[in-house]
């Protein structure tokens, strides 16, 4: 029972935050809605006993990524509200909503119309068994996750480390040097020019 209530509240937060992101004309407010959404997702993770992931979700997503967003928004000064009433591309809005609805319908249809497969009647959507690693509910998920990462998926783990390095280097290269005068930096003692 408690699960249901918690779930409903968490879902409301998530969806509310999502709508906030999509519908807010001010990007700062959208970012803040995103944070709310992330908190909801963390709650959902905890409901499903993926505690480590919930934590990491908060720390990385809400704490790093959205902050990065806010940095960029403030740095570039794009915190002005976007005019949501005008749509320069003809039919884009209608098409966008239609496609979104279509995708939702298709996914839900796939969800409810398929089954585990075999000889029970409903057909499976895919017939493939993906990689399996049994989950023991009695051990802590951190240990299990760590175990899995550093033995079976160590290559992917190292690759992501490399990826992060490359991303950092790439970011530096991308933003360096072309027109540093775009950035207005206030020197102490100087009037803002």
């Amino acid at each position, binding site marked *: 029972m408690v699960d249901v209530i918690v779930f409903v509240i968490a879902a409301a937060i998530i969806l509310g935050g999502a709508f906030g992101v999509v519908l807010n004309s001010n990007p700062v407010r*959208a970012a803040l809605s995103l944070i709310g959404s992330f908190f909801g997702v963390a709650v959902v993770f905890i409901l499903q006993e993926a505690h480590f992931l919930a934590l990491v979700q908060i720390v990385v997503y809400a704490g790093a990524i959205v902050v990065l967003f806010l940095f960029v928004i403030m740095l570039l000064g794009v915190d002005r509200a*976007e005019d949501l009433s005008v749509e320069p591309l003809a039919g884009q809005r209608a098409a966008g909503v239609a496609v979104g609805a279509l995708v939702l319908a298709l996914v839900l249809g796939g969800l409810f119309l398929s089954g585990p497969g075999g000889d029970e009647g409903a057909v499976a959507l895919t017939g493939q068994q993906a990689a399996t*690693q049994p989950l023991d509910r009695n051990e802590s998920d951190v240990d299990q996750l760590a175990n899995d990462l550093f033995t079976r998926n160590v290559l992917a783990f190292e690759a992501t480390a490399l990826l992060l390095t490359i991303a950092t280097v790439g970011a530096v290269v991308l933003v360096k040097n072309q027109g540093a005068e775009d950035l207005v930096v206030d020197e102490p003692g100087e009037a803002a020019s």
Partner: protein
Amino acid sequence: MEVTETWYLVLSAVLFAIGFTGLLVRRNPLVMFMCVELMLNAVNISFVAFSDALDDLAGQTAVFFVLVVAAAEVVVGLSIVVAVLRRGPAMTADDLSSLRG
């Protein structure tokens, strides 16, 4: 009544659809990026739901990796956005149309 994984999957689908629609409708590049994050989160929810339903650790491992890669993607993506938006803060995604045929 119990919260089965179907509920989570429905939530994930709805969140994904919202994010996708937002991506198509908004013009501000940063907001478009946030919608991408929403979609990634929706996928994360569904991974964890499957992991819980099938007693499989692979779902959680997948979420882990999605998280890391999303972070890296945000770094690079935002640096591109910064490089592009230097032209003027009122730039929207529609102004980047030099690939026009």
